[in-house]
C-alpha cells in the first residue's frame, strides 16, 4: 500500500464550512478531486498509511489517492490499461474547404479557394458511412475543420445529412463538432447544423471587441465581434435544454493576454450562468510560421491563466481547469482510428499539416481515393505514439498526470522538445483554486512534499 503515482495535492490546507481542515487531492487515474482530512494527508506524507483505518483506505483506493497493488504498475502501464478499455471511437477531421475569409496574424495556414471535388467527397462519404454501418465502433465523430468550413456550407450539409441518417438507424453514435471563426454563422445555420449532428461549436474570439475586430478582421476589413456574440447568445438560449455546447476559444498572445479581463467582462454579459457556453483560453504556438513576436513566455501564460480562472469564476463563466475524464489518446495524430482529410482527399495524421506550405506535401500519409472504405489510415511517426516506447523516454513515462493528459502534443515534442500542457506546470495551484471555488477557505500552506510522479 503506497501513495499513488497518479496523485497530486494542492499547496494549501483549507477549512470546510463545518470547521474541518482538509487538503485537495487529485487522483488522476480516476480522475477526481477529493478533499481529504488534514490528518490523513499527514499520515500519507509520513508514509504511515497502515495507521489509517480500513475505511479510510477504502475511500483513498477508490479515488486513486493510494494504490492497493503495491505500486507495481507504472503510471504509463496504468494509463495504457485504461485506454484499452475505453469506448471504440472513430474520428474523422474533415476540411470541406481550404479557404478562409479571415487573415489572422498568428495563423500559419495558406488559404486556397475551392471546395471538395465530387469524387473526393464521395470517397469521404463512403469512408465515414462504412464506419457508422460497420458495427466496429461505439461512436463515430466528425470534426468539421478548415480553413473556414462554413465557406463550404452546402458540402458540409450534404455529407452531414447522410451521416446523421445512418447514425439514426445504427447502434453506433454519430455526432460532430464544428470549428469556425463564426463570421458566417447565423441562428438559422446553428439550427440546421444541430439537426445535422453538430453538438459542439468551437468559435474563436481573440479578446475584447476592440482587439478581436483588429486581429480577426475579415479580408474585406470589417469587424465580426458583435455579430458572433449575438448569434452565440441567441443560439445558446434556443438550445439551452439540449446537449449542444458552445466553446468560445481565445488564442492567447503576448499582445492580447493582458486584455482578457476586459474580454471576459464583455462575454459575461451574455454567457454568465449559461451552462452550455464554455471559455477555452489557449496559448498560440508555431504553426509552420514564425510566431516568436506573438507567442507569450510559458511562465507568463501560466500566471495569467491562474488569474483568469479566478476572474471567470467570479463572473459566473464556465471553464475547465483540470481534466475530468481519462485521455484515451492525446489527439487525432496519435489515434490510428482517426484521420484528417482535406478538400482534395489528401490524408494526414495531424490537423496542423494540410494547409501549411511544405508540410502539406511532406506530411501527407495517403489519399482517400486510394483506400478502401474500411482500410485504416496509413501509419506515420505519430501512430500509436502515446503508447509507444518513445513516450517512455519523455517525462510522460513517470508523469502523475499521464492518465488524463495522454502525453501532450507529439508534434510539439518532436518540433520543440516540450509538449506538456500548462496544467502540468500549475496543477497544484489549480487544485487550490478548485477548492476555493467550491467554498473552502484557505488555511495556510502545506509542508513541502515530493509529488510521486512529477
Amino acid at each position, binding site marked *: 500500500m503506497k501513495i499513488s503515482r497518479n496523485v497530486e495535492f494542492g499547496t494549501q490546507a483549507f477549512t470546510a464550512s463545518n470547521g474541518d481542515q*482538509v487538503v*485537495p487531492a487529485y487522483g488522476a487515474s480516476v*480522475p*477526481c*478531486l*477529493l*478533499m*481529504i*482530512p488534514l490528518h*490523513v494527508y499527514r499520515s500519507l506524507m509520513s508514509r504511515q498509511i497502515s495507521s489509517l483505518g480500513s*475505511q*479510510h483506505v*477504502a*475511500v483513498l483506493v*477508490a*479515488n486513486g489517492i493510494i494504490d492497493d497493488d503495491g505500486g507495481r504498475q507504472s503510471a504509463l502501464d496504468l494509463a495504457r490499461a485504461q485506454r484499452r478499455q475505453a469506448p471504440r471511437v472513430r474520428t474523422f477531421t474533415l476540411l470541406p474547404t481550404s479557404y*478562409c475569409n*479571415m487573415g*489572422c496574424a498568428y*495563423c*500559419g495556414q495558406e488559404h486556397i479557394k475551392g471546395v471538395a471535388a465530387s469524387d473526393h467527397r464521395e470517397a469521404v462519404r463512403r469512408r465515414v458511412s462504412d464506419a457508422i454501418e460497420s458495427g466496429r465502433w461505439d461512436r463515430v465523430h466528425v470534426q468539421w475543420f*478548415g480553413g473556414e468550413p462554413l465557406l463550404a456550407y452546402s458540402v458540409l450539409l450534404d455529407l452531414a445529412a447522410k451521416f446523421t441518417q445512418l447514425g439514426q438507424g445504427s447502434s453506433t453514435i454519430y455526432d460532430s463538432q464544428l*470549428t469556425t*471563426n463564426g463570421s458566417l454563422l447565423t441562428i438559422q445555420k446553428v439550427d440546421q447544423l444541430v439537426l445535422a449532428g453538430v453538438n459542439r461549436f*468551437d468559435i474563436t474570439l481573440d479578446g475584447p471587441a476592440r482587439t478581436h475586430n483588429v486581429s480577426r478582421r475579415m479580408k474585406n476589413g470589417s469587424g465580426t465581434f458583435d455579430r458572433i456574440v449575438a448569434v452565440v447568445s441567441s443560439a445558446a438560449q434556443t438550445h439551452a435544454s439540449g446537449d449542444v*455546447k458552445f*466553446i468560445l476559444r481565445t*488564442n492567447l498572445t503576448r499582445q492580447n493576454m493582458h486584455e482578457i479581463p476586459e474580454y471576459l467582462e464583455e462575454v459575461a454579459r451574455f454567457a454568465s450562468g449559461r451552462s452550455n457556453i*464554455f471559455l*477555452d483560453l*489557449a*496559448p*498560440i*504556438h508555431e*504553426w509552420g510560421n514564425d510566431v516568436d513576436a506573438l507567442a507569450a513566455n510559458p511562465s507568463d501564460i501560466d500566471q495569467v491563466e491562474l488569474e483568469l480562472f479566478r476572474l471567470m469564476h467570479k463572473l459566473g463563466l*464556465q*471553464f*475547465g*481547469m*483540470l*481534466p*475530468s*475524464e481519462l485521455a484515451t489518446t*492525446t*489527439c487525432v495524430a496519435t489515434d490510428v482510428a482517426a484521420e484528417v482529410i482535406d478538400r482534395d482527399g489528401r490524408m494526414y495524421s*495531424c*490537423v*496542423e499539416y494540410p494547409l501549411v506550405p511544405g508540410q502539406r506535401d511532406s506530411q501527407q500519409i495517403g489519399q482517400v481515393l486510394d483506400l478502401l472504405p474500411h482500410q485504416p489510415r496509413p501509419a506515420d511517426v505519430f501512430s500509436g505514439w502515446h503508447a509507444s516506447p518513445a513516450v517512455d523516454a519523455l517525462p510522460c513515462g513517470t508523469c502523475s498526470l499521464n492518465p*488524463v*493528459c*495522454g502525453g*501532450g*502534443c507529439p508534434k*510539439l515534442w518532436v518540433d520543440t522538445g516540450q*509538449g506538456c*500542457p500548462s*496544467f502540468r506546470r500549475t496543477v497544484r495551484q489549480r487544485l487550490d483554486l*478548485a*477548492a476555493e471555488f*467550491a467554498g473552502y477557505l484557505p488555511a495556510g500552506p502545506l509542508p513541502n512534499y515530493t509529488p510521486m510522479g512529477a
Partner: protein
Amino acid sequence: MNEQAPAEMTQLEALEDLEVEFGYAKVNLRDEMIIAKNAVNVC
C-alpha cells in the same frame, strides 16, 4: 436486466457514505473535456 447493477449501486452508495462519515468530500471538476489536452492551434 443487469442483476449486478443494484449491488454495484449499493457499493457506490456505501463508499459515498464512508466518504461523508470520515470527512472526505468530492469537488466537481466541471471540465467536460473542453480544455486543451494538447496545444493544437485552432483558428
